[in-house]
């Protein structure tokens, strides 16, 4: 497989060398007599890719005659040879040091072009997050290093290997410590390999470093259970969940898994009337908080106290030991009542990396008997293994000069550790500094050697996210550049003359294969592993370890002082993917801001400080950030997102926002996002923020319709009275309602399941070649994403309810847009789709005015091959991510969601080719495919048994703005909150 791609990449490089002489390189596309527009369109269109396709076809087989190509086995199609124009899927694993996800990689002409969730994985269960979706673009990042670097200059592997080996040997001789600093590693084989490496160089000290550690929880579990582990949580089996500053639907630990679990308990499908309840105590308005049934605002410094108060109330009721607690006004009676009611089916989590707090949480959970029910200590999660003390020691030994060398793998401490400046200074003295970074990041820039690692889509690897759950990474493409996998580097330095691929295979042959009984031969087993991408070794049922109590105490809440609450954004994360334009332009689900981080304040607090949106504020008299007024933020606190302010990310990520890692709270020993005390000073400056939404309340319009569980049980159509009214009113129309034969495509969106995570948005962007337009354009209200996740507040109060509503083209049967297009570029298909024909569009924009949902986007500029929009579509490398089945739109045409018509056509064709009827669920739109909560259902409305028809067939179903009688094919299900009315 991969070899072929590499071959045609040769062609691609050749072209590059020839300069922009695409024509020359592919005469088949030099057509005379094309009119201006088409020629313009040409360069931006899929011809480049087509050409790849063809040459791939050709070269592939040539090469395969010569040298046998090692094939990675795809999941769906088994290609004897690659078929241009047909996509292959490879099961693989996404793991970037923070987040794990099992995925399928969709490749066309052996180019990875899309990431899809892998439904065979028991951990991520076909769910993905925005960052996973966007990761495919990192593969085609121009900032990637093209080869090994020595002192910032391109070198070659041979010499660099020799030099590093030599240095390592010398360091070993005068036994200086060499620190191997990696992100948390979940790959058993890699860990084994590192062990061997350490054997070879005993002076090497391996430590795992997390930019956002969870060491406190491990410690707490160590004290309480004698196991320094992160347990596996089961939100699906909890009736009452209480979160303390844990954004488990957005960013905390395993958002994909937790979203899945969470949504399971809240689906009101087929007559189910039970629904779990979520209490959220938090400082910032997080995604999880916005989905909570009850949300309490607490200051960081109050968290411990509140938790202890909760514990005490519970303890009183259950007659356990009560600890003295400082008083806080937050009322926890109701929570306590519910928790006790749901004893054993309850779960309390805290995202705060603070030992005291975690101890209290454990105490509460054990008191409620959650262990073994909703918390499983015997399947520990292997993420976030970094322990603070190791890092501290490392720092000291680096500073003291005890260490002679340091190797950085998948970490960027110079950017994201608290004392980055100290570290940077200290590094200068070291004789050997090696980084395995894929790009010249802040740390790599200070190293004398950079041995660029492969992108994960080019690598072999395995992973064990949680004990017993294994998962595999296999290359979907040969390394594009002269890069080498980290593990291969280690292997070549230890002098083990084999590739990591063999190493991996051997390791599995010797250590894992024997453990299983299913497969007789290893080859079959290995094939299966690679085909499924995951493998599960059932561990024997074990007794949960006994809980050993510990003294619980809580500090007095600070009063008056402004407390800072740093948080992780869904899009930016820890800043690893800062150079990914898709993520940068992804509107934050809660603030709808793009391209920046900012200071969030509650409206009241802002007013009291005389601050307006976009005013620039000085924090601790140094760092300047603009204000964003955020309802729901706790009074007297401010929030800032980490993961911004990269200086060495690349052309996209550099200088976006400000780096605030140094503001993390290290007072409690472990470094903690919450609780730093800061001072605010208003400046005269203002700074524009690019928000995709400027009005935040519904003005009493029946847009998102909601009810509470009690009402819903009484009447499933509760909160949906408007719909009743609409049905009763005879909608007089001059024309008969349109009828369809065979197919009428429809989507149903369950607003109750949708958490607003916005990952559909990126998935859609990747699938449909949606352009990135940059901050300036976003600010001017010219976003391009076809899906808009609208966010409304119940009112601009201090603790509003939040609604998330994905809005894309509703594919109306009486589409107002179609009527007004003068050139017939919009028409209605026989399958109920509102078709948009880009090449016919002349851009009068009348349809945009006439679309009540404003779901149409206009290409205000040429977004392709345009230096003023220097994102992925402006570089030949970046263009490799484009989906060849979807037109890249030219300047001046209107575009919109097509219900992924290319996927519809593909699957229909497949059905025809296989001479069978189309099955429900054959077609998955991009948004549906990637939805972690299955809120989006696509299918045939004429087929009464299809999932979409069934979910529409409830009292909760309504159409957006149905009173307009546009007859949309896209329907919504009312939101139900589990609240007392």
């Amino acid at each position, binding site marked *: 497989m991969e070899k072929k791609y590499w071959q045609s990449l040769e062609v691609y490089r050749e072209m590059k060398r020839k300069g922009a002489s695409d024509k020359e390189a592919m005469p088949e596309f030099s057509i005379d007599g094309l009119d201006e527009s088409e020629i313009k369109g040409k360069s931006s269109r899929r011809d480049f890719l087509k050409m790849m396709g063809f040459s791939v076809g050709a070269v592939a087989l040539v090469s395969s005659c010569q040298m046998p190509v090692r094939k990675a086995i795809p999941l769906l199609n088994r290609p004897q040879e690659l078929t241009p124009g047909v996509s292959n899927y490879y099961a693989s694993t996404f793991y970037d040091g923070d987040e794990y996800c099992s995925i399928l990689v969709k490749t066309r002409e052996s180019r990875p072009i899309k990431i899809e969730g892998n439904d065979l994985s028991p951990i991520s269960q076909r769910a993905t997050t925005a960052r996973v979706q966007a990761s495919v673009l990192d593969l085609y990042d121009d900032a990637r290093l093209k080869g090994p670097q020595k002192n910032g200059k391109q070198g070659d592997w041979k010499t660099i290997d020799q030099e590093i080996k030599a240095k390592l040997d010398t360091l070993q001789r005068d036994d200086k410590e060499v620190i191997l600093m990696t992100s948390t590693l979940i790959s058993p084989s890699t860990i084994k390999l590192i062990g061997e490496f350490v054997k070879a160089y005993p002076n090497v000290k391996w430590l795992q470093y997390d930019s956002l550690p969870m060491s406190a929880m491990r410690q707490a579990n160590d004290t309480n259970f004698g196991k320094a582990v992160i347990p596996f949580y089961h939100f699906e089996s909890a009736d009452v969940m209480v979160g303390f500053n844990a954004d488990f639907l957005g960013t905390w630990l395993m958002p994909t898994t937790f979203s899945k679990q969470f949504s399971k308990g809240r689906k009101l499908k087929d007559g189910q009337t039970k629904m779990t309840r979520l209490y959220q105590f938090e400082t910032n308005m997080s995604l999880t908080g916005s989905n909570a049934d009850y949300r309490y605002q607490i200051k960081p410094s109050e968290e411990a106290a509140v938790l202890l108060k909760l514990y005490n109330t519970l303890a009183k009721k259950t007659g356990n030991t009560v600890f003295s607690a400082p008083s806080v006004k937050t009322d926890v009676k109701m929570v306590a009542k519910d928790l006790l009611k749901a004893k054993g089916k309850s779960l309390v989590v805290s995202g705060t990396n603070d030992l005291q707090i975690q101890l209290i949480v454990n105490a509460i959970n054990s008191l409620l008997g959650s262990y073994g029910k909703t918390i499983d200590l015997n399947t520990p999660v292997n993420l976030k293994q970094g322990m603070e003390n190791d890092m501290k020691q490392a720092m000291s030994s680096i500073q003291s000069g005890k260490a002679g060398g340091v190797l950085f793998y998948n970490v960027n401490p110079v950017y994201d550790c608290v004392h980055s400046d100290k570290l940077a200074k200290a590094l200068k003295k070291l004789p050997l500094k090696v980084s395995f970074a894929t790009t010249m990041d802040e740390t790599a820039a200070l190293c004398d050697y950079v041995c660029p690692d492969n992108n994960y889509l080019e690598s072999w690897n395995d992973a064990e996210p949680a004990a017993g759950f294994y998962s595999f990474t296999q290359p979907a493409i040969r390394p594009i550049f002269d890069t080498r996998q980290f593990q291969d580097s280690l292997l070549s330095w230890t002098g083990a003359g084999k590739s990591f691929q063999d190493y991996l295979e051997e390791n599995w042959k010797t250590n894992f294969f024997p453990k299983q009984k299913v497969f007789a031969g290893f080859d079959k087993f290995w094939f299966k592993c690679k085909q499924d991408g995951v493998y599960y070794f059932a561990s024997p049922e074990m007794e949960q370890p006994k809980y050993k109590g510990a003294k619980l105490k809580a500090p007095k809440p600070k009063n008056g002082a402004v407390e800072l609450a740093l948080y992780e954004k869904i899009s930016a994360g820890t800043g690893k993917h800062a150079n990914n334009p898709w993520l940068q332009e992804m509107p934050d689900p809660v603030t709808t801001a793009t391209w920046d981080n900012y200071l969030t304040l509650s409206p009241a607090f802002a007013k009291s400080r005389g601050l307006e949106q976009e005013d620039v504020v000085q924090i601790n008299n140094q760092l300047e950030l603009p204000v964003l007024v955020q309802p729901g933020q706790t009074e007297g606190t401010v929030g800032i997102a980490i993961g911004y302010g990269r200086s060495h990310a690349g052309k996209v990520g550099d200088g976006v926002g400000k780096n605030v890692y140094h503001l993390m709270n290290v007072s409690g020993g472990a470094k903690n996002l919450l609780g730093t005390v800061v001072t605010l000073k208003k400046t005269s400056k203002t700074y524009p923020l690019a928000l995709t939404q400027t009005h935040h309340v519904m003005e009493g319009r029946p847009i998102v319709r909601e009810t509470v569980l009690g009402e819903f049980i009484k009447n499933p159509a509760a909160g949906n009275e408007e719909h009743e009214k609409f049905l009763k009113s005879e909608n007089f129309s001059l024309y008969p309602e349109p009828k369809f034969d065979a197919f009428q495509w429809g989507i149903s969106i369950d607003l109750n399941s949708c958490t607003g995570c916005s990952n559909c948005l990126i998935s859609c962007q990747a699938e449909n070649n949606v352009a990135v337009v940059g901050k300036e354009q976003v600010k001017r209200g010219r976003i391009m994403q076809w899906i808009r996740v609208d966010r409304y507040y119940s009112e601009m109060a201090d603790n509003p309810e939040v609604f998330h509503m994905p809005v894309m083209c509703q594919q109306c049967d009486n589409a107002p847009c179609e009527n007004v297009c003068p*050139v017939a570029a919009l028409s209605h298909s026989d399958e109920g789709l509102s078709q948009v024909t880009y090449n016919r569009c*002349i851009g009068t924009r009348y349809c945009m005015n006439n679309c*009540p949902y404003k779901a149409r986007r206009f290409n205000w500029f040429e977004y392709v091959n345009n230096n003023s929009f220097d994102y992925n579509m402006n570089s030949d490398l970046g263009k490799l991510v484009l989906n060849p089945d979807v037109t890249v739109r030219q*300047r001046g045409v209107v575009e919109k969601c097509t219900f992924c018509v290319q996927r519809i056509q593909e699957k229909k064709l497949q059905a025809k080719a296989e001479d069978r009827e189309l099955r429900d669920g054959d077609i998955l739109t991009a948004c549906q495919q990637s939805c972690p909560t299955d809120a989006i259902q696509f299918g045939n409305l004429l087929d009464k048994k299809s999932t979409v028809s069934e979910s529409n067939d409830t009292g909760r179903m309504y159409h957006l703005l149905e009173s307009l009688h546009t007859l949309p094919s896209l329907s919504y299900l009312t939101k139900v909150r589990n609240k007392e009315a």
Partner: protein
Amino acid sequence: MYNIKARGVLIEGNKGYHDITRDITNPLLSKTTPSWWWVAAFIATSMLIWGVWGFYNTIAVGTGTWGLNNSVSWGWAIINFVWWIGIGHAGTAFSIFLLVLHQKWRTSINRAAEAMTIFAVMAAGMFPLIHMGRIWDGFYVFPYPNTRGPLWVNFNSPLFWDVTAISTYLTASFLFWYVGMMPDFASIRERTVSKIKKKIYGILSFGWLGSARGWLRFETAALLMGGLTAPLVVSVHSIVAMDFAAGIVPGWHSTIFPPFFVVGAIFSGFAMVLTMMIIVRKVYKYEEYVTQRHLDAIARVLTFVSLIMGVAYISEIFISWYSDSPYEMYVFFKNRAIGDYAFEFWAMITCNAIIPQLFWFKKIRTNITMVFIISIFINIGMWFERFVIVVTSLSKTWLPSTWHAYTPTVTEVAIYVGTLGFFVLGILLFLRFLPMMAVSELKGVLKETSLITENTNNHE
């Protein structure tokens, strides 16, 4: 006869036929171009050039150079388009309505008014063009047989009606205008001494003789064309109105729009005529042809029309309240009256419905400067009306999440100024090279009005 009496003498200073010919044709025949003409022409041209830059910028860089966004995707371009079309109404409305109504006092104004129509409509026509995202594919709007299936156009689209209506209107008005000029060309042909002018006007005059039979057919044809074009005048702006009325945007979707737009058009048109004629009669010393009474007549018409406008505004607001639709009500009571665009809204009300009421006073009506100023105000007010309709409605439609404000950019301004320049330049050329009043018609009315002269004199 009432109106004539009331209006009294149409041509003052006891002129004879020859005087008329002389007065009207001299400016054309004179070799020297007045210096004010050059100055005006220079200013107009420089405006036009700036506009050309605007065009270039839009076509070369993209529609993104405008202030539009995904929510407000129509802006100045459409506003100006409607505004110009409105002005374009004056001419034809003037000549044709008054022709059909046998209003003799049109004679000294209609020619200029028609010229105004032609150039205004041309100016208007530029906006839909430049407004297109892909102007190079603009020909797609024409339903010509092609090899795409053949793929025709969407005949349901108000925009397509627009294209048809406006091009028809332009053609019809132009022909009507030209036919009216043929006899005058002939008289110039006979009068001029310069060989070239003789040749050119000879060609233009189509060999007009002025025989009795000729006049008979001429009159019939002219009357027929006028009669046919009259409904067109109404239909054109009704159709422009349908661009909005056929849309579902709250604030657009309203049945009152077509008549409302037509009235508005006539309003702005007459105002523009007033503005122009006041200047022309000054620089060309035509006080005897465009008399106080003419201006007075127009002023009266304006007063009446502005009342209609006022009613229209009120009924619009009333209907929105009566509809009880939250969306409609939001547009009028929140967004327009007290929203971000309150200024534009109130400016519209004042300029169109209130200020013209000053015309009730004879003092003001007869004070040329005041009339001039008010006419300018009306032009501005009508521009604001279009702004209110287009922008405020779009900026806050159905889903609050999509609400977005709009501010124009320099490119849009440039294009607007450019069209102004184009219009002025056109008028200047017209004044320089074409008979700016219908000579033959003036002669036609000279006799009977001078008869009136006597008896009106008796009256006064």
